[in-house]
């Protein structure tokens, strides 16, 4: 019995320690955003509220068109997410509920592409985007993402559990294919759509390597790109301003997380537990 008490203390200690480590960078950077560049490095200021938040934001917004950059990030992530939900649920539905010629061929091809790391397609995509004259536009980030097969598999998996009898009886009642899909099947798919939506949004929000390759002008940059450019060698980096930017970049994701906590965690995990 005594033994159990001690091991419980160890467990609590370990978990609380892990929580502190997990939270430390968040809290530290929130404070850092209110400090001047020299204060940031001083221990004395680490957990004291400074008075330079406005000044730091001022510096950030003179160096970059930061609201424009924020809008770019939001636009790209939002359009991408909506597109993925429409395109992938349509394709997933066909694979779950229809028989057609070439079904297994397409399915096999899609499956194979899951094992190809993105690095393989970067150069051809860059050449393609160049010939479409889409380099340095929002669309160069949004469109290639629609080729990801992950969402199709996720939606197919979920549509499979929808009872065929319901679809058949609706068809006997004279309902059309698209009416059944949009009005009868899709409304029951809310949890799956939420998961896929959150995963897509967060992934696109943090997308870095591809925007680094295709975006070249300041007013096209997304938030991660702005932040990465502020710390490039050659710039005199103002870390207070960088931290304000980091908090701006965190805000939408954090808000989603706090509102949809359970869905959010499930969504992020759906990327891992696709099997």
């Amino acid at each position, binding site marked *: 019995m005594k033994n159990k008490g001690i091991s419980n203390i160890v467990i609590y200690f*370990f978990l609380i320690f892990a*929580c502190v480590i997990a939270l430390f960078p968040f809290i530290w950077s929130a404070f850092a955003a209110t400090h001047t560049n020299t204060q940031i*490095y001083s221990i004395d200021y680490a957990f004291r509220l400074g008075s330079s938040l406005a000044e730091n934001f001022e510096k950030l917004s003179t160096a970059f068109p930061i609201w424009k950059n924020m809008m770019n990030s939001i636009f790209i992530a939002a359009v991408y997410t909506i597109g993925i939900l429409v395109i992938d649920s349509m394709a997933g539905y066909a694979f779950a509920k229809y028989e057609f010629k070439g079904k297994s061929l397409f399915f096999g091809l899609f499956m194979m*592409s899951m094992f190809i790391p993105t690095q393989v397609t970067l150069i051809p995509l860059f050449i393609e985007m160049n010939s479409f004259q889409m380099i340095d536009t929002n669309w160069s980030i949004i469109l290639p993402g629609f080729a990801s097969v992950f969402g199709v598999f996720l939606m197919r998996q979920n549509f499979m559990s929808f009872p065929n009898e319901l679809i058949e009886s609706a068809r006997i009642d004279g309902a059309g294919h698209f009416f059944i899909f949009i009005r009868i099947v899709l409304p029951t798919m809310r949890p799956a759509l939420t998961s896929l939506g959150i995963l897509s949004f967060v992934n696109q929000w943090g997308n870095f*390597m591809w925007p680094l390759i295709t975006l070249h002008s300041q007013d096209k940059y997304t938030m991660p790109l702005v932040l990465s450019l502020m710390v490039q060698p050659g710039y005199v980096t103002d870390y207070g301003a960088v931290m304000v930017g980091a908090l701006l970049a965190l805000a939408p994701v954090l808000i989603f997380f706090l509102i949809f906590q359970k869905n959010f965690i499930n969504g992020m995990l759906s990327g891992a537990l696709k099997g």
Partner: protein
Amino acid sequence: MRKKLNNLIVPYVFILPFLIFFLVFMAYPIIFSFIMCFSRYANASFVFKGLDNFKFVLNDPLFWKAMKNTFIMLIIQVPVQTFLAVVLAVFLNGKKLKGRGLMRMIIFMPILLDSVSYSIIFSIFFNYENGVVNNFLRIFLPDGPQWMNVGWLAKAVLMIAITWRWTGYNTVIMLSGLQSISDDLYEAASIDGAGRVKQFFYVTLPGLKQVLIFAVILSVTGMLQLFTEPYLLTKGGPVNETLTIVQYLYEKGFESFDFGVASAGSYILVLIIAVLTWLQLKATKED
């Protein structure tokens, strides 16, 4: 008649939007870069070069350096992170634990910070002169180490940062695996006189195996594709000591515009990922 035709066409209409994007932005680029592996691409045309690109990559000391760096970090970071995730998950799974939901949420949070922001924050933490870590170490020691100027220390910084960001995510994956293990098994084990430690090895670990291997595959693939962290945190330095495979590919492709070499390198990466994934999946089936 019309209805029958409709039935034939409808599924294609459903997959058409996806299929177009897949063909244009996935299938075509995959084939394109495969051809590029064996050629020199200039002025929008290919010149066949046989295996020259592969020979170049495999004889490039920098490529092997990048391979070595990536694998050293993978071999240390993945086991450490997986171990931490399993321990945290087992602790969090305690039925009588107070504040379980809150702690689970906090431990998951690091994944919310985007990869660029956290790389920058960790680069400030590990700054030699007055970073948080060295300031802390100076309480006990005369001085902190020059994190960014020593190869293995720079690797350590990368691994610490990555472990910070991904352990919580993996913990929640493990937790979902733990919750699928039936309570009856634990009860039976404890009736047979198994203590907590024995229960862990005979009930928890076997029950977790599938999820565990899956999480490991995910982490290994992620480590093999490491880019943002070394690019921003250590800038590949000191003297390429933290240069990763994908950073090497990025530099070949988009800094020296050597498309053929970069494509050949990326297909070598495909091969590595395929072999490692196959090995790990094989390990799940053997019992």
